Every structure is written in structure tokens, then in C-alpha cells.
């Protein structure tokens, strides 16, 4: 039992009291920065890197990894309470999470998030232990055509997120696509929509745009209401998920965990895809899809589980191949080197204590996160009993700080204010916000992979259909696109039959056609 001995070795490292403590510190810090939008895990790891010089290598990495998945754990809090997604992976949580909070069920949403995240963490660690090499093969088998197909599929799923009209969803997606194209294109080096400004050269930043579209516009919408906004009446008895919530959520949590674990290994959109992919799947599978968007607990549980599961497997390229695919991982890579360990394909065999120790620490870390976050649920939920006129100040402060802290740039605050106004206008006309933000996140990757595929395929679109993975995904897209047309035609055929029966006059028939 090689696997078993590896695991025992891993836990024997992870359960050393110092490592437990370091994992705890990392998890606490991670939750804290996850709750505050803006200052992400990368900036925190960068700040703490010098502190790890004196630690032993495994302990240092355990702490830094804790910050990373702790931040993913905490990311949903502002989404649920204030409708402000701090990271792109918690955008989907806003949809139903915030609705639950409005209905006085913030506690249930937060509690389910914590539990779902914990289970997601466990599922992904289990998958990581069982099939880490297969997961790294999956990461390698995705070339530009596969990414293109996956992200294109994602773009179509984004439209389904909006509960209102599909047309408005499509329009919102298109706006998001245009926003995502701002900046320099990777292949030709052409500047688009930059108006000669250097600030826009590297594209729009997610955080200021999201802070504006969600946070600021929400404040504006609430301010115009003259009557006192209904205080979120949080029933302290209803703080925990009910039996019905559990019944609705257990299967979505398992599915979300599995999907998140798989997509997490794919850099460039994997995590985001996992969140709204699992949301879409649950909405499709649900017997009552109309509840989604109005505070369905599955709509919180599934994406949050997927998010946390993907945060774990996102370590696969770093741990099994030695390739950091996220800024936070690049910093962990740096930390390993400072301790004299060069991560690479040989890490697993030459430094098993590092590899298995870090993986085992994810189990203990996730458990600590759960124990840490559950008591906080009550505190967060109580925050909503603060009168809105005071809460507004908190929201605006959080938004301004979040936007500024990403790049320490005042331009970002201006961007946020601008998108606040844009978001206000869009919401007044009933446009859903999440398709805008999500397609803005997906498009830069989609565009780059499409261009890369075109170079690889000499400009021939057949490259997408001739490779197994991208071909399958493309077939899926075609099916999704054809399905409404076929069903529309089918219904229309029935309508036509009825019409023919009603009147046999050729003139009327021609008119109807």
C-alpha cells in the first residue's frame, strides 16, 4: 500500500504541532484577506514571504498554501452579505447568496458555504491523492484548441445564469466580451479600446469593475428608495441550514466538488468555469429551476464547493510539474526555492515529505477553516442588522479600499466609480450583471487561446473538431445551440398543424409562414 504509506507520511508531517499552528495561521490570514475584497492571497503571500525564511521548508509552504485556500474560503462572505464579489470565483455566489441574505437567511447561506467549502476541500484532496498524476496529464492535454472550446462553452453557459430574458443575458454577455477585450491582444500586439492610455494597456482589472458594477450600483439603487430599506431580519434561530436545506444541497455539493476538482487543474479560467458550471448544472437538474436567482440554497452550495475544490487541485501543476499557474503559486514556488527546494517533476519522489505533507495539511487546514468560520457566521449575519445608512459607509469603504489595494492605483478607484454608474444604468434597464463580469473574465483567455489555435491550425477552424477533447466540447456547444431551435421548430410544427386545421385558406397559411 504505497498510497497508504504516503498518506501516513503526509499526516505525520502535517500533524506536527508547529505545522498545525502554521496551517492555522495561514488559514486565519487567508480567511481575513478573503473576506476583504481587493487584497488577494497573492499580495498577502508576498507580504509574509520574508517571515517564512526562518521556518522549516514544509512548515513555510503549509502556511502559505493555507493563505491561498483560506482566501477562497472567505471569498464568499461579502458576496452573500453585501452583493460584492471579492474574486471572480465568487461572482456566482452573489446570485443566490445575496437573495438569501435579503430573505433573512444569510446565516444559512454562510453556514452552507463553510460546510460546502469544507466538503469540497476534502473531495478534492481525496481526488488529488488518488489521481494526482492523471490530473497533471489532464492539465497537459489541454492545449489552445481545448481551452478555446471549454471557454466558449463557458460563455454560452454564462447566458443561462440570468434568470430573466435570454436576450438581455446575451446582450450582457456581449458587453462583458467587449470589456474583456480592452487592452493589448496577445498575438498581434494590437491595442484595442485603450484610447492611447497606458493604464488600459493591460486590460481592465476585475476588482474595480466588479466593485463598481455590484457594490456601488447596489448602493445607488438603495439610496434612491425613499422609504427605509427593509432591515435584513435575521432570525437567529434560522442561522443554520435547515434539514430541507441539507436535503437540497448534499447532491449539488458532491457534484460541485467533483467538477471543481477536475477544472481546478486548468489554469486560465478553470476555477471560474467550475463555479458557474456547477451552478448551471444544478439549475438544469433542478425540478424547480425558477427558485434559482431567488435564493436557492443549491445555488450557493454548489459553486462554493466547486470553488474550494478547485483551489486545492489548482496546486497540481505546481506540485506535480513544478509549473506555477497563478501569481500566488509563483510566490509559493519562490518560497520553496528560498528554502533550497526547486519544485519540478521530481518533487514527489525527492521531497515526498513536502508533497504529501502539504496535501495532508490541506485536510487539517480545511477542518480548521470550518471550525473557524462556523462561529463567525453568527457575527457576520448580525452585521446585517446594522441600519442601512451606516452599512452604506462600510460598503463604500470596502469598495474603495478593495479597488485601490489591487494595484495601489487611484485610476482603479475612478474605474470603479465609472462602472458604478454604468452598473446602475444597466440594472435600471433590467440587465443581469453576472454575465457581464464573468464573460469579461473569460474573454481574454478565450481570445488568446483562439488566436493560438488559429496559428497552430494555420487558420483552419477544423482544428477544433479534429482533436478529441475540443471536438467533444464543440459537439456539446452545437447541441446546446441546436436544442432551443429544434424545440422551437417542434412546437411551431404543432402550432402550424393547429392553424391548418383552423383555416385551410392558402392566403392565411402564407401569412403564417
Amino acid at each position, binding site marked *: 500500500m504505497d498510497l497508504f504509506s504516503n498518506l501516513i507520511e503526509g499526516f505525520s508531517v502535517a500533524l506536527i504541532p508547529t505545522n498545525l499552528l502554521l496551517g492555522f495561521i495561514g488559514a486565519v490570514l487567508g480567511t481575513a484577506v478573503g473576506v476583504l475584497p481587493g487584497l488577494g492571497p497573492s499580495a498577502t503571500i508576498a507580504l509574509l514571504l520574508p517571515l517564512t525564511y526562518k521556518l522549516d521548508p514544509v512548515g513555510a509552504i503549509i502556511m502559505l498554501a493555507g493563505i491561498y485556500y483560506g482566501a477562497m474560503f472567505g471569498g464568499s462572505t461579502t458576496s452573500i452579505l453585501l452583493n460584492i464579489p471579492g474574486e471572480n470565483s465568487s461572482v456566482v455566489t452573489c446570485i443566490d447568496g445575496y437573495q438569501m441574505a435579503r430573505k433573512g437567511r444569510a446565516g444559512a447561506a454562510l453556514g452552507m458555504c463553510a460546510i460546502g467549502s469544507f466538503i469540497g476541500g476534502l473531495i478534492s484532496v481525496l481526488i488529488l491523492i488518488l489521481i494526482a498524476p492523471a490530473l497533471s496529464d489532464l492539465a497537459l492535454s489541454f492545449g489552445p484548441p481545448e481551452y478555446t472550446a471549454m471557454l466558449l462553452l463557458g460563455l454560452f453557459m454564462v447566458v443561462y445564469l440570468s434568470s430573466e430574458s435570454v436576450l438581455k443575458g446575451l446582450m450582457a454577455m456581449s458587453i462583458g466580451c467587449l470589456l474583456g477585450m480592452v487592452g493589448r491582444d496577445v498575438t498581434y500586439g494590437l491595442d484595442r479600446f485603450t484610447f492611447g492610455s497606458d493604464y488600459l494597456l493591460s486590460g481592465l482589472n476585475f476588482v474595480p469593475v466588479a466593485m463598481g458594477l455590484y457594490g456601488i450600483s447596489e448602493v445607488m439603487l438603495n439610496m434612491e428608495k425613499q422609504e427605509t430599506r427593509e432591515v435584513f431580519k435575521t432570525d437567529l434561530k434560522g442561522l443554520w441550514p435547515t434539514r430541507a436545506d441539507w436535503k437540497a444541497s448534499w447532491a449539488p455539493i458532491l457534484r460541485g466538488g467533483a467538477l471543481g476538482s477536475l477544472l481546478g487543474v486548468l489554469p*486560465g479560467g478553470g476555477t471560474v468555469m467550475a463555479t458557474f458550471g456547477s451552478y448551471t448544472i444544478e439549475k438544469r437538474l433542478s425540478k424547480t429551476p425558477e427558485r434559482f436567482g431567488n435564493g436557492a440554497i443549491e445555488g450557493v452550495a454548489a459553486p462554493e464547493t466547486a470553488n474550494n475544490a478547485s483551489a486545492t487541485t489548482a496546486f497540481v501543476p505546481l506540485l506535480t510539474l513544478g509549473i506555477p499557474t497563478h501569481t500566488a503559486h509563483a510566490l509559493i*514556488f519562490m518560497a520553496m526555492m528560498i528554502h533550497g527546494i526547486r519544485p519540478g517533476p521530481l518533487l514527489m519522489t525527492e521531497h515526498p515529505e513536502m508533497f504529501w505533507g502539504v496535501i495532508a495539511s490541506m485536510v487539517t487546514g480545511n477542518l480548521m477553516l470550518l471550525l473557524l468560520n462556523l462561529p463567525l457566521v453568527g457575527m457576520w449575519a448580525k452585521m446585517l442588522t446594522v441600519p442601512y445608512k451606516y452599512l452604506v459607509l462600510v460598503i463604500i469603504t470596502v469598495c474603495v479600499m478593495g479597488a485601490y489595494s489591487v494595484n495601489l492605483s487611484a485610476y482603479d478607484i475612478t474605474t470603479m466609480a465609472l462602472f458604478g454608474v454604468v452598473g446602475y444604468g444597466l440594472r435600471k434597464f433590467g440587465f443581469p450583471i453576472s454575465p457581464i463580469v464573468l464573460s469579461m473574465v473569460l474573454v481574454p483567455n478565450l481570445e488568446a487561446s483562439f488566436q493560438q489555435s488559429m*496559428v497552430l491550425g494555420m487558420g483552419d477552424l477544423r482544428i477544433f473538431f479534429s482533436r478529441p477533447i475540443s471536438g467533444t466540447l464543440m459537439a456539446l456547444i452545437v447541441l446546446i445551440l441546436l436544442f432551443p431551435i429544434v424545440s422551437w421548430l417542434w412546437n411551431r410544427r404543432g402550432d402550424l398543424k393547429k392553424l391548418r386545421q383552423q383555416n385551410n385558406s392558402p392566403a392565411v397559411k402564407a401569412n403564417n409562414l
Partner: protein
Amino acid sequence: MDKAVTWYRQNKARIFFTLAVPLALCSVQRAQAQDFPAKPITVIIPFGPGGHSDLVTRPLSAVAQKYLGQPLVVEMKPGGQGIIGTEHAAKSAPDGYTLLATGVGWNAALPAIEGRSYGPDQLEPVVMLSEESTFLTVRADSPYKTLKDLVTYVKANPGKVTVGIGGPYTTSETFWRWMTKTQGASVRLVKFGGGSQMMLAGLGGHVDVFGGSPLSVSEQARAGKIKPLVYYGEKRHPEYPDVPTAREEGFDIALEIWNGYAAPKGTPRPVIDKLAEAIRKMLDDPAVKEAYKQAGEHVTFLGPDEYRKVWRETYDFYADMKGAYSIKGIVDEAKPAN
């Protein structure tokens, strides 16, 4: 006479200030070099954390207090491929309290090719810290054993080989642009948003040729996954004595990526000298040496004047290459040198 005395009495303060202020300013400037630094020095890194500038600056900022009497504060100003931070530093007061972490991309290639960002004429070089190049690599099972093999194949089959590029104006892009310009060897350049994505695509077999820094190549090569064919630097890399340089393989090109520090234009020379001297001493500090060794970093120290020369040469090289970067189609039109 009386009038004059009254005038003097009335305007005593004014006269005193008109005379004293320039005098005081003179002495301030002299004192500036002597007392420099009197407050913390900020190093602006025009990228986010985890990059190469971050890697070389971190160990220095840890020991700076010992050699400068003041701390070295790192400020990350990412955005616009390094232009945002560069501009911020270049427009700061030229008093030596703001330095810019310089690099080839944002201080030579971008200004020379696009007229963006700030080049050697708009900044004062302080020191060069490191100089490194990158490798051209192929997968271990690739049919190409040497660069010559590869180039022979490329010339016989224009546009057939795909080359992964990790970003704009990187050494590998420049190398292949140069090959097309001077040798008429054209490949298809597949551009990725970063070195990691390129390496993943290379390992996964999605591109034929790729590359990477000594750091990102080392473990992959040691595990037998990839083969470095050539080093683009002036000399062979000390950790890879068997990998030839491009020059040795018969291609007259050497590409170095340097990192250093620069000050805003107009910073007094004595201040720059003082900084350069302090940084030179920092590089000899055992803690810095150890940190660089762990990170696989090789120090190449150059003072302000030598660094200015190198910077100028790099800038001129990219200015020469300017026309070679524009692509019209998927495959570069091969225009052999006449």
C-alpha cells in the same frame, strides 16, 4: 539717505529672504549628497509580486539598513507591461529617494520599438544587478538534437514548426524575429500570456519548440522531460556547461535580459554614486549571496557608467530590430538578408 534707511528697515525681512533662500538651497543640495539618505528609499517595481525584479530586490531590501542607514522600501506598481510603474518613478522627484527596478522589456524594447515607457535617455542608470538569458528547449522525444538541426528543418519547411512565446519582446520572440530577418527562417509563433502557460503547452506537446529561464528549465531538464538546445546568452550558463550559445552554433546573436535600478532624470551624480556603492556592498553581504544562490541568481554588477553603456547597446539593438516585430499573417514572410 533717510529714505534708503527707511526702505531697508521696512524691507529687511524681504531682503534677507531673497538672499538667504538661494544660499540655503545651495547648502541643502550640498548637504543632500552628504547626508543622503535621510529617509527611506523607495524602489518601484513596475510589476506584481513574484517576478524577477521582486526576486532580486527582496534580499537587498532585507539588508539595506546596514549599508544605507535607511531601509529600502519596495512598492509594486503593476500595469501596462511595466509602463505605469516606470512612468511613476520617472516623474518622481530626482532626489535619489525613488528608484525604478529596470528591465529590458520596459526600459529598452518598449521605448525602442513603440516609443512607449522610458529608455536610457529619460532615466539615470544607477546599477545593473543581474544579467541572464533564456534557453531554447524542445521535448525530450523531439527529433531535433541541436539548433542547427532545427534551423535546417525550418529553412526547408518554412512555417511548419511552431514556437511557443511567453510574452511580447521576450528573448525567444526576438531570436526568431531575428532569424526570419537575417536568415529567412520562418516559424509560426504561438504567443502565450506567460512563461508558465508556454511551458505547459510545450510539455503537453502543443508546440514544437519553447523555452524558459534557467530556473524554469532546470527541473524539467533534470527530470528528463525537456532538452535545452541552446542558450541565448553571451556565454554559456554556468549550470549548463554542455548547452552551447547561439553564437557557437553559428548564429551571430546574443540576448541578455538585465535587471537593475535607475533614478529619475536629473538626480545628482553624488547621490547616484552613493547608492551604487551601497548596493555594491549589499551584493557582497553573505545573506544576500545565500539568497541569490538559493534562487539560482547570478550577480553581474555594473556601476552607473558601465550600465549606461550596456543599456544604450540593448536599446540600439531593439531599435534596429523594430521592423522585424510586425507580423502580417500567421507565418512571417521570409525575407532573407541580401
